[in-house]
């Protein structure tokens, strides 16, 4: 009950005055404003050092969170792509008219429910798929290369793959269906490993950030001990004292966090340019795109960076609150 009443009675509206510049706060209704001089000094050497530390840690945390987010998004896109497609393979050996067979199989597939697109690959298309392994040579066309039909399935109402597989085997010789299950399983394993690795790295960076923020805030708080003492001696309630410090440190955390997050956003924007400057050419860019998708953060990624700022500012505020209560407890 005490916690609930504490939360209800907390001067939430005054927190805004700690975050916004004085000029903007002056435009707000009276309940959002704090009258009188700031009891906690707005600037100090220790406070400036804390701002720098918070900005750097937010920058690193945003880079890690954004990077993990990009890899995760890209991995999910791979799985989605693969899961949306099946491949039909036609054995060219012992088939008199492979083109006719391709047409018949394609027509058969197009009639099946849950299939949205059937795309027979030409012999040249199949040969191109082998080029990375065999090189560009005319002799490829002389090889008995299996012919492929790419089939896109409707993810919202997928077909019964087993039924199609059985029907194909019964109606056509030398036709097999590959639903990419083995690939999907492998890609899922890779994406899960990547995601877990990313989360582990993010966890480590988060732990380091939390530790640095707590120690830096504690250090800044120790320089404010005299203020806590004076407020205590003039009869201020603990809630008043803690709210003064919370407002100050929340504002400091938000400003420093935004600086770090902004720097991280700029870094993400400049990532392709940085790779180019470091000597990466078009191939590097293509490989990066394959690994990280577009290589740019989407709105979700930027929201994640904002979440990092909220966590950093919240931690800063909470640490100052605990610091105030620790000092006050020492007088009890």
């Amino acid at each position, binding site marked *: 009950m005490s916690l609930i009443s504490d939360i209800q009675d907390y001067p939430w509206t005054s927190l805004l005055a700690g975050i916004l510049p004085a000029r903007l706060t002056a435009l707000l209704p009276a309940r959002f404003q704090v009258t009188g001089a700031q009891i906690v000094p707005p600037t100090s050497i220790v406070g400036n050092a804390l701002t720098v530390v918070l900005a750097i840690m937010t920058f690193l945390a945003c880079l890690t969170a954004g990077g993990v987010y990009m890899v995760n998004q890209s991995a999910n896109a791979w799985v989605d792509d693969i899961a949306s497609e099946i491949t039909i393979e036609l054995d060219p050996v012992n088939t008199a008219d492979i083109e006719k067979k391709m047409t018949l199989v394609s027509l058969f597939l197009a009639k099946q429910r849950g299939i949205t697109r059937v795309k027979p690959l030409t012999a040249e298309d199949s040969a191109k798929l082998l080029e990375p392994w065999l090189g560009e040579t005319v002799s490829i066309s002389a090889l008995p290369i299996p012919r492929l039909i790419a089939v896109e399935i409707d993810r919202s109402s997928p077909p019964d793959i087993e039924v199609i597989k059985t029907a194909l085997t019964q109606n056509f010789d030398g036709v097999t269906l590959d639903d990419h299950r083995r690939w999907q399983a492998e890609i899922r394993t890779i994406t899960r490993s990547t995601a877990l690795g990313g989360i582990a790295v993010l966890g480590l960076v988060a732990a380091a950030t939390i530790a640095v923020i707590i120690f830096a805030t504690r250090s800044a708080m120790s320089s404010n001990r005299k203020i806590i003492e*004076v407020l205590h*001696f003039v*009869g201020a309630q603990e809630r008043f004292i803690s709210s003064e410090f919370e407002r100050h440190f929340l504002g400091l955390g938000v400003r420093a966090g935004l600086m770090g997050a902004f720097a991280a956003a700029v870094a993400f924007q400049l990532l392709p340019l940085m790779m180019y400057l470091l000597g990466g050419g078009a191939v590097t860019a293509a490989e990066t795109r394959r690994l990280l998708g577009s290589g740019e953060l989407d709105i979700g990624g930027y929201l994640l960076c904002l979440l990092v700022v909220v966590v950093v500012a919240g931690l800063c505020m909470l640490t100052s609150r605990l610091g105030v209560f620790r000092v006050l407890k020492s007088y*009890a």
Partner: protein
Amino acid sequence: MIRFDNVGLRYGSGPEILRDVTFHVLPGSFHFLTGPSGAGKSSLLRLLFMSLRPSRGLIFVFGENVADLPRPGRAALRRRIGIVFQDFRLLDHLTTWENVALPLRVMGKKESDYAEDVTDLLRWVGLGERIHAYPEILSGGEKQRAAIARAVITRPELLLADEPTGNVDPAIGNRLLRLFVELNRLGTSVILATHDYSLMEQLEAPRLMLDEGQLKVSGT
């Protein structure tokens, strides 16, 4: 108003610096607290102000047993007490006026309601020209007067002053004593810790004398 029953105080596992201290402070009374340096005057004041807990014995402040009070309750009692510290404890980033107004601000009063009172009091203690000055540029005596003004601005029921005239010249010292007497006449109980005998001779008031941790009351 204040009652000490067999109060003892020791810091950590050190020797007892206050032993069997027993006394009463009645509403509207004026006491000098005296004794040689290191006799425990400041510690006794801190016990009175509830910023220290006794090692033994009972302390009643405004009828409340301090040991039974939670922290918020002690803060509420502290608002009824004004305290002047030997080392002033002014906040360096606030002006003299803002320092003096601080107790009213923490009580949640509106600035418009107390602005004139703060200015008048500062003029009365001779700091009318230093209203906007920061403590860093005040002299020792000016800081002392600002600290006293901060302690009395709320018209406390009890005023505790630790060597309030230690940093001022005799003329200002006498003026400050007159301020304490005036407050006392208006109903504030005053406990003034000092070892300035010339100051004590100016006023007929009971003396709480601390010596080697024990308290003797004289002049009642």
